[in-house]
């Protein structure tokens, strides 16, 4: 861009055209006070402090809103400017309390800094002082308070919430003297649209918005967030051995603008008193699976030597008696790459089995399988920042703003400010759907029909990229033919989406110069998961949206290091770097490096391990940082399997529901207590740095494994995590250039072949990893379970913004738990009305596999006939309900579709031994007509005479009486 030269206080400065005068002033290293300006926000010009004198311009323009021009002569301070600035600041202070000494934010208070700089005078402030500062403080939010008395109305919070977060929960309201930053309807923050990310608190220049618990940290350590796969860089503020504050580390390309509520306020689990600090061994008198009031009573504390001996002996016994393949190892997507590498090496070399898997099986196994087949690489093809340059974003099966909030923000910004078009395909009306150009709310499990329908439309309208298809892809003809089965009418019927919307989506996507598809579990967690992903791949190849900036195939990985765990070979079929265990050459390489004969038999997947425990094929499990008792589908079955094991070792930071079933529990360190690397969803390998010393006697995961391994006759000697990565780099071509010293500044995106390679932000640039992109013929198949009369609702499961998976971390965060303390089921107004369910009722939800109790939440987010539940709660485990049926190719369970019925919990209890009530409950409309009623019964029922009814059915609870009255009205007995 062309440079513009101007003079500032007599010095010549060159800045790019389009900069503001303030940018130039800052570049010149001159301080000009500001209160409303921030580089990430659009120029605003509210505080008027950055006024300057510009030769030839009238008055004193605000430098933050004035664009630079060639030859400008700027003076940043004159006596007049000084005087005006002082008055402005004095006016602000006149309405501001004086309690700076006891204000939590005074250390970083911009108002205080500016006041010092301009020299505000007590006498002038006193003259203008507002008589009383008594606006009510909003303390409703569990994370931060808003004190409007300290607010100077700079609007930074309002603009951050709009421009950066894309939420717009607050804005200026009222007028003049009474102007207030305010939520919709003036509600308390806790009841507003605020998502508690705390970005406004971070930017607020005064103490108006301040964290509830402010402790100034002694030092800050840069690391990576342990929650989702976005991989946000953050600064952990540490005081002593405690994390007291978390901020975004802004110099990175992932989360330039900030953090979500989990990252900022959800890390106090690290210092939670529930943390395991010593190894635990099951007491001899405490049988597994027996319900105890206090799970900790089943165990006794032991020292490391005893515990490690016990583990090594237990595993050796099973190996000697039943063979190495009777042991399963479950690695953790929460652990670092180095941990995962050591875990899979332990399984393969020390134990001698490929039975190693991790929770990717439950989230993106289908992505890895399908994308390897279609492109040759099972990962996100482009970078997160590509969202900024796309013309069209197609989000399918991903509630991005809740599950990957920072990517969600990017999408929202792209749509709001870059003019990107947004297509959202989701059965639910999620937040993104509200701002979408097209929302395709298809029936759960009809993704292939929908995508094929869209592709057929694209082909019919001749919008596909013939050049790309012929030059870069193969097997196009059979694919093209297969689309004939998806005419609009058929797709409309199968998916429930109006044909106009399908046409519109096809037009928008087909015509886009640069389009990207982002998807999540809504695509992968189906019996057709692999085919779903192949359909996504087909769509991208058909329209040539691969290998360029602003395009791409974007599976949004769930866990912080699920990408890395896959890369490190914590999968039953591949060594690190997706090198197949069945390939003799690869095996020979690893055999030489690891000095052991390695098995060529692909191991069992995580889901298969649980299924084969019952057949005695797996007798021992070593579970690291996973909680399958809540995360497996049909959790009751999984729990039964764990109880049946001969030997279970759990290595975790808390005594999770799974650890409670263990024989030995080994206390590991959290992410904050170790060095290592995480690989995020865009394949970026980033450094995790130790911020605090390991709590109590906890130890780093890879060190624990190495010690067990040594006791089993296979010592592994590494001096540090960096040391492990050196070995990874040697054996794993795609990680060939990954070395710790190269990761200091923002990390590297694999494939990174060697020390000089700069990483690969975009895959498949000139040719696909596998050569040509392969089209696959995929056809629509119904989900394994369809609604029936007995189970009429389709239950979808997933996550919510404030919690994480089985909640072992997020439930131990004060703020997150305060925001979302109990589980709920989202149910449509129509179904609720029919079932007589009111908001907040305790309902019982049953599937063919189990029953859970939870709170009803009536919402327009789900369609009639559908329901949604998050799986974060042990007291209402959604996975008791889910269907364990697997995708035949990737072995991923169908978490997204299960048939359930819901009923008022009180009604279910009462109906158990009451034929009358159960008949009414099971037949939502009209049953009594078929009964031969006596006149007195009839009149009592007709008039809803509860007292009379109670005489026959016994006393009813209050809530039940209300329900019964409403239910009897639906009977229309009068017509008979």
């Amino acid at each position, binding site marked *: 861009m062309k440079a513009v030269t101007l003079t500032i206080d007599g010095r010549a400065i060159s800045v790019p055209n389009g900069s503001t005068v303030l940018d130039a002033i800052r570049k010149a290293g001159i301080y000009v006070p500001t209160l409303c300006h921030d580089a990430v926000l659009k120029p605003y010009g509210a505080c008027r402090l950055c006024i300057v004198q510009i030769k030839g311009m009238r008055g004193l323009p605000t430098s933050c809103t004035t664009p630079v021009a060639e030859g400008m002569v700027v003076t940043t301070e004159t006596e007049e400017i000084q005087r005006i600035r002082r008055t402005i600041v004095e006016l602000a202070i006149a309405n501001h309390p004086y309690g700076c000494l006891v204000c939590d934010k005074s250390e970083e208070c911009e108002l205080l800094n500016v006041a010092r700089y301009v020299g505000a005078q007590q006498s002038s402030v006193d003259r203008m002082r507002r008589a009383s500062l008594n606006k009510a403080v909003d303390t409703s939010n569990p994370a931060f308070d808003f004190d409007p008395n300290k607010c100077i109305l700079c609007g930074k919070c309002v603009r951050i919430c709009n421009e950066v977060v894309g939420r717009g929960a607050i804005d200026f*309201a009222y007028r003049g003297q009474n102007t207030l930053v305010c939520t919709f309807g003036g509600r308390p923050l806790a009841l507003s649209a605020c998502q508690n990310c705390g970005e406004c608190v971070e930017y607020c220049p005064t103490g108006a918005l301040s964290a509830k618990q402010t402790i100034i940290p002694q030092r800050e350590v840069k690391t990576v967030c342990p929650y989702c796969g976005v991989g946000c860089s953050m600064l952990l503020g540490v005081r002593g051995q405690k994390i007291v504050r978390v901020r975004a580390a802004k110099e990175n390309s992932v989360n330039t603008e900030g953090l979500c509520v989990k990252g900022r306020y959800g890390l106090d689990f690290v210092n939670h008193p529930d943390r395991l600090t010593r190894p635990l061994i099951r007491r001899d008198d405490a049988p597994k699976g027996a319900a105890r009031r206090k799970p900790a009573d089943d165990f006794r504390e032991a020292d490391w030597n005893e515990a490690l001996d016990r583990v090594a002996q237990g595993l050796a016994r099973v190996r000697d008696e039943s063979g190495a393949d009777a042991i399963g190892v479950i690695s953790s997507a929460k652990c670092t790459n180095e941990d995962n590498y050591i875990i899979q090496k332990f399984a393969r070399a020390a134990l001698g089995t490929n039975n190693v898997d991790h929770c990717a099986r439950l989230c993106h196994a289908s992505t890895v399988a399908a994308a390897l087949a279609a492109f040759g690489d099972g990962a996100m093809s482009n970078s997160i920042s590509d969202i900024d340059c796309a013309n069209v974003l197609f989000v399918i099966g991903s509630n991005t703003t809740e599950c990957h909030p920072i990517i969600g923000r990017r999408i929202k910004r792209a749509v709001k400010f870059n003019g990107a078009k947004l297509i959202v395909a989701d059965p639910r009306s999620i937040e993104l759907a509200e701002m979408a150009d097209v929302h395709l709310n298809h029936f759960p499990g009809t993704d292939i029909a929908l995508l094929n329908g869209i592709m057929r439309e694209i082909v019919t309208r001749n919008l596909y990229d013939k050049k790309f298809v012929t030059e870069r892809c193969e097997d196009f003809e059979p694919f093209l033919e297969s689309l004939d089965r998806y005419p609009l009418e058929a797709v409309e019927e199968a998916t429930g989406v109006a044909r106009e919307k399908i046409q519109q989506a096809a037009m928008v996507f087909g015509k886009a110069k640069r389009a990207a598809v982002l998807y999540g579990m809504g695509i992968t967690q189906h019996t057709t998961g692999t085919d779903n992903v192949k359909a996504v791949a087909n769509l991208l190849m058909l329209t040539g949206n691969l290998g360029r900036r602003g395009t791409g195939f974007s599976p949004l990985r769930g866990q912080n290091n699920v990408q890395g765990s896959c890369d490190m070979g914590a999968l039953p079929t591949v060594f690190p770097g997706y090198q197949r265990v069945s390939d003799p050459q690869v095996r020979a390489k690893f055999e030489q490096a690891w000095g052991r004969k390695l098995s060529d038999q692909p191991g069992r997947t995580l889901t298969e391990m649980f299924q084969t425990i019952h057949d005695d094929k797996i007798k021992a499990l070593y579970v690291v940082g996973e909680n399958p008792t809540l995360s497996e589908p049909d959790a009751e079955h999984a729990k039964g399997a764990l109880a049946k094991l001969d030997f279970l070792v759990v290595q975790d930071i808390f005594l999770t529901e799974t650890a409670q079933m263990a024989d030995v529990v080994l206390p590991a360190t959290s992410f904050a207590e170790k060095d290592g690397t995480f690989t995020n969803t865009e394949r970026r390998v980033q450094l995790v740095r130790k911020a605090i010393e390991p709590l109590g006697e906890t130890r780093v995961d890879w060190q624990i494994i190495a010690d067990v391994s040594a006791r089993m006759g296979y010592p592994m000697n590494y001096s540090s995590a960096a040391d492990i990565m050196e070995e990874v780099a040697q054996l794993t071509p795609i990680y060939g250039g990954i070395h710790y010293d190269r990761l200091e500044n923002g990390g590297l995106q694999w494939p990174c072949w060697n020390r000089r390679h700069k990483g690969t932000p975009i895959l498949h640039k000139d040719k696909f990893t596998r050569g040509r992109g392969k089209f696959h013929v995929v056809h629509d198949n119904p989900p394994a379970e369809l609604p029936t009369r007995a189970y009429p609702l389709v239950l979808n499961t997933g996550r919510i913004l404030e919690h994480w998976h089985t909640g072992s971390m997020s439930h131990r965060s004060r703020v997150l738990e305060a925001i979302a303390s109990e589980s709920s089921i989202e149910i449509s107004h129509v179904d609720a009305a029919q079932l007589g369910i009111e908001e907040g009722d305790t309902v019982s939800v049953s599937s063919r596999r189990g029953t859970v109790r939870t709170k009803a939440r009536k919402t327009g987010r789900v369609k009639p006939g559908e329901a949604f539940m998050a799986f974060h709660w042990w007291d209402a485990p959604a996975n008791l309900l889910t269907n364990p049926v697997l995708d035949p190719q990737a072995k991923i369970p169908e978490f997204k579709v299960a048939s359930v019925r819901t009923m008022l919990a009180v009604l279910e209890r009462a109906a158990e031994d009451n034929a009358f009530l159960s008949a009414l409950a099971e037949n939502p409309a009209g049953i009594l007509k078929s009964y031969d009623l006596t006149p007195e019964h009839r009149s009592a029922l007709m008039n809803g005479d509860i007292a009379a009814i109670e005489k026959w059915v016994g006393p009813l609870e209050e809530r039940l009486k209300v329900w019964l009255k409403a239910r009897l009205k639906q009977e229309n007995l009068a017509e008979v």
Partner: protein
Amino acid sequence: MRALDVKGFIGLEEAIELIRSEFEGRPDELIPMLQRVQNAIGYLPEEALLEIARATRLPAARIFGVVTFYAQFRLRPVGKYIIRVCRGTACHVSGSALILQDIQNHLQVAPGQTTKDGLFTLETVACFGSCALAPVVVVNDSVYGLMDSLKTRKLIEEIREKHGAIVARAGVEKGDRNGLRIFEG
């Protein structure tokens, strides 16, 4: 006295339909939308604001900001008769403060409030520009000039009576928000 005319307020559902049918949903239609809804319902209920937020894709908080910025918008149901007392200079020197005080005592409401029966809303206005008729009281769209406390009180009672008669005739319950809007024209 002029004849009374009857005009009905529409319900929230209809108003939401109105937002969808009469507007494209461009952000610059915000103020016309708000005016249209207020005109139809008499005030701006939260549900209508949320619907406008959905239609314009503006944050609800922004819309709340706009609504509270302009004096013309109201967030609470308004009485069927809006009594506006002019507080301009000419009216002030002609005793409008006394009129205002008297109405307040009589109706037991402060400016900006609505009577318990939902019939009257009392407001003050900086100047109507009808200074020749000072002091001026305006009821809905009708201007009454050269007023005093007694005349105002009589006017209020008259309206109350006629309203009662119309309600009796139309069979609409008193205080029904979706009921009648009567003004003299």
